[in-house]
Each structure stands twice: as structure tokens, then as C-alpha cells.
């Protein structure tokens, strides 16, 4: 597989890897405790000695909060995307291979779920189970799974029409084997790309939910939460909202570029026609 590294894919890789590195680092080292207030040092501007990006209204270091926030973004974003992927693959494959009734049931179920706005689901879940990381992940899963189902179903149906599937059946291979060993590897490219895109969307959605107060709450920290807290300080110290906002933009951009770049790399080998 000859990878065609172009500029945007490179940027995507750099941003994503940087993001993951920072989040990992946060488990081993933090410049300060991001939750302990330090009132005498509150609202320090960026560039202050010892606080490269300044401190918030309670004197907590911004960089430390960003690092822990990165952790949350991964847990929520990747967690939501992963669970949706697993559920989506199961339902999508069932719909593609299972016959008309199964297909109709699953597809219409996915349609119904897709017609409910994600925020509504999130709010309902938060109201029932309280806000927090787990609820946020659940809300994301409810939102992303039906999309995954659709993508998996379409890709799987196209693969199932190929002759090598017929050949496998002629060898007596069962449906499960065919789906696992023949269909999944051939739709893997599509799934990887979709995963990175949903990862990015998850981070964005989580930021929105936490901003509204129905996502993550202290002592957990997320970039959306930082944005929410910064809202009150807009007149006094505007840059407070800048840092988490910038973090969100860079990571989401990075993941999207990575997803697009991967799509280009993984597809052409299979779809390029002979001249």
C-alpha cells in the first residue's frame, strides 16, 4: 500500500498525534493541580511567570486544565465512537445479510433514531441519569450508532454481491464466517474513516453539552466546561475562552484531515481502473 502523503494528511497526523500525546502525558505529569483554587493568582494573563497561558477566575492553571480536558475529550469522543462502531457493525451487518424483514426493521429503527435530535437525547438522558462522562458517552452512542449502521449496511451489501462471497458459500462457509472474514476486512477502510470523523464530532458535541451544563462537571474537566466557565469572564478576561476554543478547533480539524486523508489512501488501490 503506497501511501500518498499530502500536506493535509500530514497536518492531520501531526495534530492528532500531538493531541494524543498531550492527553497521555497528563496521566504522568501536570504542571499544577487543575482543580485546586489559588485565589491570589487568579486571572493571570498569558505569559505570566509559571503560567504560560494564565489562570482562570479561581486561579487554576489553564495549561493543566487543557491537558486534563484532552483526556476527557478522548474518553468521551473515542468512547462514543467505539461503542457506536461496535453496535453499528453488528446492526449493519445484520441488516445487510439478514433478509428483508430484518433489514426493514433495523433500517427503519435507525431512521427513527436519526430523526431525534442529538441534543434532545442528551438532555433527556442527563435529566434521567444526571450529567457526567457516562451519560455523555451514552448520548453520543445513541446519536452515532444509526449513522454507522447505515454506512456498514451499504458497504456490506456491496461486498456481498461479489463473486468471492458466492465462492465462499460454495465451500460451505457459514454466514458468520463470511461476514467476519470476508466482509469486515473489505469494509474496514470505510469504518476507519467514519470512526475518525465521529471521534471529532464526539468531541465537538461533548463540548456543546458541557457548555450547556449537561455534560461533564467538576472535578472532571472538559474543554466545553472551560468554555462555559469562561463565559462569565468575557468582559474581564476574554482570552480565557480562547484557549479551550482553540484546542477544540485544532483537534477536530486534525481528526477530520486525518479521516479525509485516510479515505484517499485506503480507497484508490481498490477502485483505480486499468487504462
Amino acid at each position, binding site marked *: 500500500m503506497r501511501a500518498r502523503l499530502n500536506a493535509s494528511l500530514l497536518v492531520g497526523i501531526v495534530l492528532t498525534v500531538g493531541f494524543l500525546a498531550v492527553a497521555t502525558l497528563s496521566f504522568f505529569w501536570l504542571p499544577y493541580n487543575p482543580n485546586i483554587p489559588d485565589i491570589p493568582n487568579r486571572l493571570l494573563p498569558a505569559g505570566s511567570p509559571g503560567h504560560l497561558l494564565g489562570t482562570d477566575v479561581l486561579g487554576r492553571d489553564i495549561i493543566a486544565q487543557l491537558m486534563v480536558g484532552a483526556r476527557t475529550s478522548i474518553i468521551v469522543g473515542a468512547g462514543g465512537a467505539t461503542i457506536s462502531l461496535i453496535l453499528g457493525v453488528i446492526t449493519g451487518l445484520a441488516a445487510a445479510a439478514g433478509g428483508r424483514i430484518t433489514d426493514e426493521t433495523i433500517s427503519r429503527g435507525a431512521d427513527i433514531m436519526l430523526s431525534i435530535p442529538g441534543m434532545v437525547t442528551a438532555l433527556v438522558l442527563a435529566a434521567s441519569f444526571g450529567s457526567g462522562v457516562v451519560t455523555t458517552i451514552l448520548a453520543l452512542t445513541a446519536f452515532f450508532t444509526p449513522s454507522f449502521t447505515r454506512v456498514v449496511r451499504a458497504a456490506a451489501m456491496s461486498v456481498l454481491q*461479489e*463473486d*468471492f462471497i*458466492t*465462492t*465462499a*458459500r*460454495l*465451500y*460451505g*462457509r457459514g454466514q458468520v464466517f463470511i461476514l467476519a472474514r*470476508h466482509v469486515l*476486512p*473489505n469494509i474496514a477502510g470505510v469504518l476507519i474513516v467514519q470512526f475518525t470523523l465521529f471521534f471529532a464530532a464526539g468531541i465537538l458535541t461533548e463540548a456543546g453539552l458541557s457548555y450547556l451544563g449537561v455534560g461533564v462537571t467538576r472535578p472532571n474537566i472538559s474543554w466545553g466546561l472551560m468554555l462555559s466557565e469562561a463565559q462569565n469572564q468575557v468582559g474581564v478576561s476574554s482570552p480565557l475562552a480562547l484557549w479551550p476554543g482553540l484546542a477544540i478547533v485544532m483537534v477536530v480539524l486534525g481528526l477530520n484531515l486525518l479521516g479525509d486523508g485516510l479515505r484517499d489512501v485506503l480507497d484508490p*488501490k*481498490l477502485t483505480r481502473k486499468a487504462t
Partner: protein
Amino acid sequence: MTLLQMHGVTQTYALPRQGLFAARPRLTVLDAVDFGVDLGQAVGLVGESGAGKTTLTRILTGLERPQVGHVQFDGTDIWAGDTARRAQFRRAVQVVMQNPRSSLDPRMRVGVALHEPLRALKIAGDHAARVHQVIDQVGLTRAALERFPHEFSGGQLQRIAIARALMPGPRVLIADEPVSALDVSIQAQVLNLLKDLVADLGLSLVLIAHDLSVVAYSTSRVSVISAGKIVETGAPLELFTRPRTAETRALVEAVLTVEAGLAGHALD
């Protein structure tokens, strides 16, 4: 001695309803079809697309069950036997399909794809040795085993597909339009290969095509199928020189040759 035979097979499919209360019309894809091949024989099946060739192949290989009629292999109904008999049938009847790019899993190395029938059909013995033996028979190199399908040309892929079909040591090889997707100079190579395999291994061959000359070259008896019915059967030379039905005549007339073209009456 008949080896694989379908007898009185009729197959229909339901079409979408035309009105809410109308009955679902049924399309007859195969109509009381008798078709088969004897031990060591090479037979052909010719017809246009939509004539029923694909369905016939699916029924002959056990992929589809006939609604009316039965399919017998070595004297036993293939749908009546126990698991062991079914496994035996699957080993004995193998298929090579039209589009070699579609019949091989693009994510599997050629070597793995060739091992697959041996594993799936639980064939005993040294698999690696068998793989080497067969790729020699079809004229491929050992290096091919490590590569992926997209690295090969259409003609080479068809050889790989034939090699895969030979792995379980079948007694019947069904070739469904094996050369129509290939270039003209490669067609000859593949047809020769099939002919040699029939002669060397004592295989029975069922060759399905829409071009009469291809079938005429490779087989000793040809059946013409049209709209789900077998309309004529005979030796290739017979069909060419003394066609008895309109459908056969149409197929004979459709054959274009360089000679006829140069003489100026090819398109009449």
C-alpha cells in the same frame, strides 16, 4: 455414465405486485430443464443473457434448490444426502466464474485464497504441497502466492481462479463465461488450459458462454438455452452446419469471423 445431472428442473421467481390486490406474477426462469455431464465429458451451454444460464449454474452447484425437479450427483440427489454426502458433493463440483477480479477476495493474498478450499472443505493431507502441485499445473509461479489480486492481469487471475477450483481435486469443473472478460490472445491460453486439464485429469467440464465458437472449440456436446428452456442439443459441428431451431440459428449467425468480414458479408 452420468456424473452430474439436473432433471425436470423448473424455477420461478416472484415479481413485485402490480396493484395492491393483484396476485404476484411469477417469472419462469427455468422450464423443465434436463442438463448434465457424463464422466470425462466436456459439454457446453450457450444462450443469451437472461436465458437462464446463471440460475442453471446456481442450481447445478447446489447454491439454489430447485422448486420442481432434482439434481443428482453420482446417482444421489444432492439435496437428500446427509452432511457427509453434501461435503463430498462440494468437493467434487467446483466453479470458475466470469469476472476474476470479483471472484477473489481483494484483501487475501493469493496463497491464502488457494488454501481456503482445502481448509473450508476439510481436505486431509499436506496443503502446502497440494497448492504447489496445482499452481505448477496451471502455469503460475511460486512468487504469485505472496501477492494480492490487484497485482495481476485478468488472464493471470483467471488462472488463479482455475487453480483454486482444482484444489479439492474435483470431478466436475463448471466454467461460467470463463473467457468473456479476457483479451483475445489470453482467451486462447485459458481455453487451451481447460482443454489440457480435462484431458490430463479426466475432469468433466461444463462450459457456459454466450459465444458459440468458444463453446464449440472446448466441448463435444452443446445445449442451447433460450427463455429458460433447452431448445436444442448436439455436437458443435452439427449445430453450426445444421441448426434446427431459430434460437440456434440466431446464435450461429451472430458469430463473426475475419473471413466473413473480409469477404464483405459479415453484417448481412
